[in-house]
């Protein structure tokens, strides 16, 4: 029970400050779950994001469910996910009730311009930390490059490729051409 409460409260804290959606959550998760509590590893987190990308629903939620389950089973999954939802629900209820033009306030816009700069740097640091265990050879580097280019230039492509399809294709590619064993991460 105590552990469930701790799981819930940890994700409340993460939910409250998770500006910028899914991937901006990674540095926060690393601090709260890897370095402060060692509930998981950075490599496992990266794997959860890969799965969250190609399953239905919001990535941040998928990752919360995953970590909660690993820690404390089904009850843990609910504790973590509901915790993650608590902050945003409260904030939107307040905004919907009182502040209809919240996003247009000048001070809010300046603050968020600043936060976006910080989010850039935080995400970059997360990429640098995961790089060595994810892009392990020339094949994975090529795969990385192709997917990145398809994502970044999806606006100018004549057809739209869903991100989930790219991730699933990469998984299938791995089954045929990948190497297993000698692995960190998936324990």
């Amino acid at each position: 029970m105590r552990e469930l409460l701790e799981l819930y409260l940890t994700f409340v804290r993460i939910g409250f400050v998770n500006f910028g959606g899914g991937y901006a959550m990674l540095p926060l998760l690393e601090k709260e779950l890897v370095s402060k509590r060692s509930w998981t590893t950075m490599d496992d987190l990266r794997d959860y994001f890969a799965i969250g990308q190609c399953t239905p629903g919001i990535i941040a939620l998928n990752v919360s469910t995953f970590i909660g389950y690993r820690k404390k089973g089904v009850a843990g999954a609910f504790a973590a996910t509901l915790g993650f939802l608590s902050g945003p629900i409260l904030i939107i209820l307040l905004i919907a009730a009182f502040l209809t033009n919240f996003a247009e306030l000048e001070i809010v816009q300046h603050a968020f311009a600043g936060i976006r700069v910080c989010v850039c740097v935080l995400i970059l640091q997360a990429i640098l930390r995961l790089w060595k265990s994810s892009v392990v050879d020339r094949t994975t580097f090529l795969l990385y490059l192709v997917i990145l280019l398809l994502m970044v230039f999806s606006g100018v492509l004549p057809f739209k490729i869903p991100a989930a399809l790219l991730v699933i294709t990469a998984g299938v590619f791995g089954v045929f051409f990948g190497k297993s064993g000698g692995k960190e991460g998936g324990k």
Partner: protein
Amino acid sequence: MTLLLRLFFEFFKTGLFSVGGGLATLPFLYEMSTNTGWFTHADVADMIAVSESTPGAIGINMATYAGFKTAGVLGGICATIGLAMPSIIIILLIARFLERFSDNSYVQKAFYGLRAASIAMITAALVNVVRVSLIDLQAYELTGNLLSLFRPVPIIMAAALFLLIRKVKWHPVVFIALSAVVGIVLKL
């Protein structure tokens, strides 16, 4: 009561079919707006703006907002849990599966590809934030001058933050709060 159930199921469907997170929910939200009249298309546009400046994903925010507008606080909570439910169920199934099969060589090989894809997705997310913070595509299109593509103040700020984060081990929230203050002071 029936209204609460309807809210739950409408958002349950959205959660089930929007693969890949936040913005993938948009087409479903527009459709729901047309079908139910719970919120307008303009509400969706407003909610995109709010979601960019509050924690939480747009799908979650829209569910809370629409639920609240239609059926008060309880409605907001029902809609949001409805949205989250499919992913909770599916992830629980996958987590079970992985627990049992994580040593399977096919699963390990799949992750060989998935990991590269995951880092590519994270990099693409980075590119998206850089586009709206460190560079100014509009100014570049207007002037055609390559130098006008870069926003000097945010770039210097990013470099300073990068070095600071390497040096001190504060909680990321501290850096986020600090950056908000800098944004307000410098009128970014």
